[in-house]
């Protein structure tokens, strides 16, 4: 049975806010959270809404979430300041399966960096870390890690001009051997990372996003094929992904209607 007492909602005040760039900010909380990289919490702004956010920084007494201003909720969240009150439930979900052995690659796209950051900090220093963003300004936590990062941007303002998948494939074809690839970012990007991994026979873990309500696997809002994203995921490995016909194709709207992923994301970003 789960430890349910850890998953009741608690109220916290924002301890510190760090503006990452024009569209991203990180909110810090002084609270000890039992947590595994890749897990998420439900964040409630009283009177506004409640949404899932991954933990982007974690230590014994402290944790943080990083917010990208996109929709109504995230624009309110990014405007919060030190002392503001919000509620959290969780952490929920499975988190990444952290392998101690073998050579790893981490592939982050945009805000997909957030769940990967605490993971990267648990991996060994020779992990290959590929990080893509729209522009140089959108690269999150530029100075946070002490391992080498390979960068790419959509506009070429920093690093390679192009996609993270270009860089991953380049690493593989240049002779690097990987035993595990971890990825988070836009679903199309993760799907392409998964496909590359399948081609070269590398196990892969991706972190999926779907509209969520309960966060603990009962309401069914986030089902993706046979998987319940909030409970079985959000991290799924190659075996589950191979059978997941909704991966990169379909998602449920708030009403439960299943639609093409493009329609889902245009609704989510409102």
């Amino acid at each position, binding site marked *: 049975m789960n430890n349910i007492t850890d998953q009741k909602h608690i109220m916290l005040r924002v301890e510190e806010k760090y503006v990452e760039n024009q569209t991203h900010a990180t909110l810090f909380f002084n609270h000890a959270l039992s947590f595994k990289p890749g897990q998420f919490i439900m964040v409630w702004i009283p009177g506004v809404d409640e949404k899932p956010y991954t933990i982007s920084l974690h230590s014994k007494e402290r944790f943080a979430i990083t917010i990208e201003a996109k929709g109504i909720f995230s624009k309110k969240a990014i405007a919060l300041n030190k002392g503001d009150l919000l509620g959290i439930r969780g952490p929920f979900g499975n988190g990444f399966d952290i392998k101690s052995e073998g050579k790893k690659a981490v592939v982050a796209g945009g805000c997909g960096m957030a769940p990967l950051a605490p993971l990267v900090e648990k991996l060994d220093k020779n992990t290959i870390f590929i990080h893509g963003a729209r522009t140089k300004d959108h690269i999150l936590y530029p100075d946070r890690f002490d391992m080498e990062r390979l960068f790419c941007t959509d506009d070429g303002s920093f690093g390679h001009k192009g996609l993270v998948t270009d860089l991953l494939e380049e690493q593989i074809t240049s002779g690097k051997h990987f035993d595990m690839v971890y990825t988070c970012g836009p679903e199309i990007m993760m799907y392409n990372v998964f496909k590359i991994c399948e081609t070269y026979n590398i196990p892969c873990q991706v972190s999926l996003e779907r509209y969520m309500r309960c966060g603990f696997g009962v309401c069914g809002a986030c089902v993706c094929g046979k998987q*319940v994203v909030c409970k079985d995921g959000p991290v799924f490995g190659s075996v589950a992904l191979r059978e997941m016909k909704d991966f990169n194709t379909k998602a449920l709207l708030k009403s439960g209607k299943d639609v093409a992923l493009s329609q889902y994301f245009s609704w989510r970003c409102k």
Partner: protein
Amino acid sequence: MTIQFLGKILKNPMVLASGILGNSHDILERVYENGCGLVTMKSIGPEPRDGHKNPTVIDLGHGMINAVGLPSPGYLNMENEWKDLEKRDFPLIASIYGGSVREYQMVAEFVSSKKPDFIEINISCPNSEKHGMIFGVNLQSSHDVVSAVKKVINVPLIVKLTPQALDIGDIARACEDAGANAICAINTVGPGMVIDIESKMPVLAFKKGGLSGPMIKPVAIRCVFDIYKAVNIPIIGLGGISTGKDAIEIIMAGASLVGIGSAVRYRGIDVFQKVTLEMETWLKGHDLSMEEIIGAAHREG
């Protein structure tokens, strides 16, 4: 532990409660594969409906409170799902709701053409302004909606009742008189409310919501007991059932099948096979059969 229910053979008496998981063929199939004898779709409404804003579901430790608010694509917007469900190899209850007798009838007629094994009418949801519970607390409206739906469908009809009825036995009898083939009880209890004292605000966006989980089990047991006394049709008993002993208890109150909802949270998606196994063990240890204990708590002395 096969059991016959309204002419269908089920592999066991476990039922997935409406509103839990039930959002697609694939997840319903997984629930079935995890030992559930009969699965229920999320309630289908007359028009597209998003449900309420979050927070919609909160765990209280001893149960949950929810006001998801009947989200539904609307009965005319589910073609993909119906296509998948036509090919199913598991028994299915399609749950429906409406805002008027006419709407219930409209949805029911269409859904019946998609050939679920059973239709359940939800006249008991506490989480919507105009749907559900308002029908289930009144004798006349319960009777009206059941007889109207019964006229337009050709699969057996289950009616899901609310514990908020003044006398749930009377409501059940009115439904039976109107042609219901089975009763499902209970829907969530309440509505209740949880206020966060730091923000001084109700936590649920809809402010109030229905209670479920272990804390409501005594209410469910009492309701099923009252219904069993009042009607001759079978009862799907649910409300806070999470173990084999809970299941035995509600069967002794009068249930023929046992629904599971919130316990998916506490014991995982395979709760159905766990509870079935625990029931079998208990029955074997007491040298009893399932049939022998249905309504066993009604004997005098």
